[in-house]
């Protein structure tokens, strides 16, 4: 159902965008270091201490990833995930989101690390460069753990009446899932 966009113009435009995005990450590294030099900050030491913090973060993340990937793999190989996905498939097809991503869409607003586990499992299963794999990556990169964020902010601010925040935030999530599917279908493949 997802037709290929074979026009030459689109392919050329895609190549240009691809070439430009290749510049982004190396340029950010250079620009940040140049600004640090101009401000006479010790960029190498700051990078080192930040990287050490990253390692601590990684170590706290490992047990979570092990448990969650165990759970996600069990859901997948038992066939439960397929049952859930095929049950939801008509709704997902209707709104234009690939039904294979159903599990991710369901879990993303609830738990960030579970979403990462589900996403990584889907990317490995369908291939990182497949349409599903890319849609999953864009979904993960452009949405947040909505319920967690809301509870942290309202808890800290002492708010009891949240009014329309949850519906508006869930609507933003839905737009994110929908646009992730659409942009990947249009720009990639």
């Amino acid at each position, binding site marked *: 159902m997802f037709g290929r966009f074979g026009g030459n113009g689109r392919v050329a435009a895609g190549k240009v965008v691809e070439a430009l995005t290749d510049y982004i990450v190396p340029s950010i590294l250079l620009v*940040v270091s140049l600004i640090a030099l101009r401000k006479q900050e010790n960029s190498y030491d700051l990078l080192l201490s930040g990287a050490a913090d990253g390692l601590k973060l990684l170590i706290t993340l490992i047990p979570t990833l092990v448990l969650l990937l165990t759970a996600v793999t069990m859901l997948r190989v038992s066939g439960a995930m397929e049952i859930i996905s095929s049950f939801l498939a008509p709704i997902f097809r209707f709104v234009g989101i690939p039904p294979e991503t159903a599990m991710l869409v369901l879990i993303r607003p609830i738990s960030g690390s579970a979403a990462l586990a589900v996403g990584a499992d889907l990317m490995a299963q369908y291939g990182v460069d497949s349409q599903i794999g890319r849609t999953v990556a864009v979904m993960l990169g452009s949405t947040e753990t909505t319920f967690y964020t809301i509870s942290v902010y309202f808890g800290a601010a002492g708010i009891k009446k949240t009014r329309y925040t949850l519906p508006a935030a869930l609507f933003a999530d839905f737009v994110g899932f929908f646009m992730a599917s659409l942009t990947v279908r249009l720009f990639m493949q």
Partner: protein
Amino acid sequence: MVMSCIWTAILTVSLLSAALLGNMSALSAGVLQGAQSGITLALAMGGSICLWTGVGHLMNKVGITEMLAKLFRPLLGRIFPSTRSDPVLENHLCSNVCANLLGLGNAATPMGIQAAQRLARGKNGVASDELCRLIVLNTASIQLIPANVAAVRSGLGCATPFDILPAVWITSLCSAGLGVTAAWLLGRLWKR
């Protein structure tokens, strides 16, 4: 406690479906495969996480968050009118949005919470329109470089892990923009 319930529910559902569909041997092997892929994934994205946490730390110390904040001040003034009369709130809000933009979650949350507490002052526990918008903006992630996702992709053998950037930007912009618009519309309809 919530996670314990989710974990038990997942185990129950998996066991029942495997028994019904005759996938029990796959399930039994899947337990160990899943646990191992947790470690494999963590190691595969470890390098990128360390590097990007380092870059984020440097960006924060060098003051790139403040530079970005200057750029976004006019736009944020429109979404949050009370920042115009409250410079402290303006500062917290701009830092929150810009730290999110740079992917510095650890720096963004305390700033956002301080802004939220300031917005909640004297409202007797009822969320104001601006507070609702702040939270919608925070739940619709706006991130320039989604480093963790790129790390997962590169860990799974992707040759161009950052080629999703344009799609991520357009998607984030739409979800944040439409989310705040929806909040603004609901704010006019909703009774306090």
